[in-house]
C-alpha cells in the first residue's frame, strides 16, 4: 500500500514541476473554456416557443400564432416533452391550451405560458403576443403565466462539460505517452524493473497517481466554470458532483490505459504522439464536445455512439445540466467501463519495461 502512496506523491510532484504538463492540462483547457464558454454561437433569431394544444376549438388561434414572425411555433405532444425541450434549450417557453379552451370565450379557460427562470423577456414577448392574438384587454385575465424551475445555461452549459471530458482524454493519453516513453528511452523503467515491484504494481501505482491528477483537474475546471462563467452544476443536486467524479475516475483510467497501450504498441518513440493524435483528433469532433452529435450525418452518428468520449461527455453534461441521479447515468458509466476493461487488458498484456 505504501508503494502506491509513494507513487502518488512522486508522480504528482513531477506533474506539478513540469511546465508542459501544467500548460496542457490546466492552462490550455481553461483558456479554451473561457473562449467557448463566452461564445454566442447563434446571432439573434426569433425564439422557439412550443405549443401544447389539448383543445379542438383553437384552430385560428394557432394559425395566428404561427403567422407571427416574432416567435417560431414548435408543436409539442406532451408536457413531459415540453419540459424536456425547455431544459435542452430547443424551446424558450411553451403555451398550453387546456382541453376546454375555446377561442371564442378564452377567458373561461385560460391558456398558460411556461417559461424558464431568468427568461423574463421571452415570457413577456409570448404573453403580449398571446394576448393580442386573443384580443385581450388585460393580459392576466386571459393568460396564466408560470415560471418553471429550469435555468437554461445556453452554449456554455453544453460546451463546458464537453471540454471537461476532452481535458480528461487529453491529460490521460498524452501525459502517459510523453512521460512513459522518455522513461523507457532513458532506461528509468529498466531501473524500476530491477526493484522488487511487479509490472502490475507499477501500472496500478501509475494509474492511481495519474487518475488523482485527472480528478483534481476536473474539479479545478468545473470550479472555474462555476465562478468565472457562471455555470450551474446539477441544479444543486449532489448526484451531479458524484457522477462527474465517477466519470472522471473511469474516463481517466480508460484514457490512461489507452495512453499506456499506445506507448506499449507503437513501433517507435516518434510514432506514439502521431498515433495518439490519430485517436484523439476524431473524437474531439465526433463525440459531442463542441456541438451535439445530432448535427452529424446519421451514419457518422453510429460511429460517434461507439466512441468512449461521447458517453463520458454526455454523462458529465447530463449530470451538470440536470443533476441526473447516478442510476440514470448507468448506461454511460457502463459503456465507459466496458471500454476501460478492454483497453486495460490490452495495456496489461503488452506492457514492457524496455
Amino acid at each position, binding site marked *: 500500500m505504501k*508503494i502506491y*502512496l509513494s507513487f502518488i506523491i*512522486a508522480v504528482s510532484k513531477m506533474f506539478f514541476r513540469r511546465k508542459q504538463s501544467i500548460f496542457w492540462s490546466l492552462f490550455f483547457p481553461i483558456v479554451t473554456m473561457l473562449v467557448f464558454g463566452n461564445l454566442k454561437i447563434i446571432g439573434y433569431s426569433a425564439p422557439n416557443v412550443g405549443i401544447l394544444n389539448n383543445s379542438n376549438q383553437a384552430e385560428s388561434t394557432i394559425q395566428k400564432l404561427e403567422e407571427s414572425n416574432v416567435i417560431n411555433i414548435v408543436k409539442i405532444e406532451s408536457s413531459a416533452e415540453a419540459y424536456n425541450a425547455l431544459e435542452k434549450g430547443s424551446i424558450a417557453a411553451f403555451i398550453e391550451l387546456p382541453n376546454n379552451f375555446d377561442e371564442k370565450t378564452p377567458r373561461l379557460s385560460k391558456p398558460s405560458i411556461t417559461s424558464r427562470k431568468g427568461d423574463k423577456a421571452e415570457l413577456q414577448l409570448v404573453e403580449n403576443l398571446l394576448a393580442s392574438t386573443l384580443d385581450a384587454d388585460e393580459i392576466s385575465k386571459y393568460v396564466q403565466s408560470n415560471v418553471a424551475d429550469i435555468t437554461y445555461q445556453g452554449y456554455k452549459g453544453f460546451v463546458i462539460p464537453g471540454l471537461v471530458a476532452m481535458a480528461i482524454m487529453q491529460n490521460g493519453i498524452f501525459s502517459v505517452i510523453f512521460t512513459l516513453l522518455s522513461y523507457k528511452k*532513458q532506461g*528509468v523503467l529498466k531501473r524500476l*524493473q*530491477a526493484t522488487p515491484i*511487479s509490472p502490475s504494481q507499477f501500472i496500478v501505482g501509475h494509474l492511481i497517481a495519474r487518475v488523482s491528477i485527472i480528478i483534481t483537474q476536473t474539479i479545478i475546471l468545473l470550479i472555474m466554470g462555476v465562478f468565472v462563467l457562471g455555470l450551474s452544476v446539477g441544479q444543486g443536486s449532489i448526484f451531479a458532483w458524484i457522477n462527474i467524479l465517477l466519470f472522471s475516475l473511469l474516463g481517466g483510467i480508460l484514457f490512461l490505459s489507452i495512453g499506456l497501450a499506445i506507448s506499449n504498441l507503437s513501433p517507435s518513440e516518434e510514432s506514439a504522439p502521431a498515433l495518439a493524435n490519430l485517436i484523439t483528433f476524431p473524437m474531439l469532433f465526433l463525440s459531442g464536445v463542441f456541438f451535439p452529435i445530432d448535427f452529424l450525418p446519421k451514419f457518422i452518428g453510429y460511429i460517434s455512439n461507439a466512441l468512449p468520449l461521447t458517453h463520458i461527455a454526455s454523462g458529465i453534461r447530463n449530470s451538470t445540466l440536470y443533476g441526473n441521479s447516478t442510476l440514470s447515468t448507468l448506461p454511460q458509466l457502463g459503456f465507459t467501463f466496458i471500454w476501460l476493461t478492454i483497453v486495460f487488458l490490452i495495456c496489461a498484456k503488452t506492457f514492457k519495461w524496455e
Partner: protein
Amino acid sequence: MINVKNLTKKYEDIVAVNGISFEVNEGEVFGLLGPNGAGKTTTVEILEGLRKPSSGEATINNLDVSKETKKVKSIIGVQLQSVNFFEELSLSEIVELFADLYSSNVDSNEILDRVGLLKKKDSYFKPLSGGQKQRLSIAVALVNNPKVLFFDEPTTGLDPQARRNMWGLIKSFQKDGKTIVLTTHYMEEAEILCDRVAIIDEGKIIKINSPSNLIDELTKSGFKSTKKVREATLEDVFINLTGKSLRED
C-alpha cells in the same frame, strides 16, 4: 554467494551468453572483463533478474534468479550501465522513492552522505555531472542494504578524479562485507579493485583467476611487453598536477 552454471542466453540469431559457469565468494569483488558485445551486460542482467536465461541456472544466496526473482531483487543492489532517474525529483526524493519500492526504511541523508552527495540532496537529477549521476546511481543501489552489488561499467566516461573516488567507494563497500560484481573496460581498474576476474569473449569465459596470477601466468610463458615499464603513468602525472579532489561539487 553467487553460483552460475552453464548459463546460456540466445536471441533470435545470436548467442549472447554461451554456457558460462562461475562462482563468486562472499565478500569478494569479482570482475567481468571483455570487449564490447562479449556478453558481460547480458550475464549481469540475468543475475539481476532483468532477463530470463535460455538455459542453465544461476543462484544468489541460494535463491534461483529466474524462479525467485523478486526475492533476489530484494537482496541485491543494482547500478545499470545507462544511468537515468526521474528528472523532476530531487536526489533525496529519488532515494526515498526507491527505498519505498524496496519497502525499506533508510535515511536518505545517510545514504547520500555515503556517496558524497549530501550537499546536493535538494538538487534535481538533470544538472548533475556524470560522476554525480553515477554516485546517485550507487546511492540508489544501497537503499535496501543489499548483500550483493552489481556495478555495470561504473567509471565509464568519468574523469580521473571521479574514477578514483568511485574506486574508494567500491573498496569501502567491500569493507562492509558486501559481495560485488563489476564489469569494466579498464584493466588497471580491475587490477586495483578485483579479487578475481573472469575474462569473457563471444559469450564464453576464457579464464578466471586473480589479476596478479593472470599477469604471472602471462610473463612466465615468456611474454615481453613492448612498452617499457616506467615508474609512473600519464594518469599519475595528471593526478599529481590537478590534485585528487573531485571537481564537480
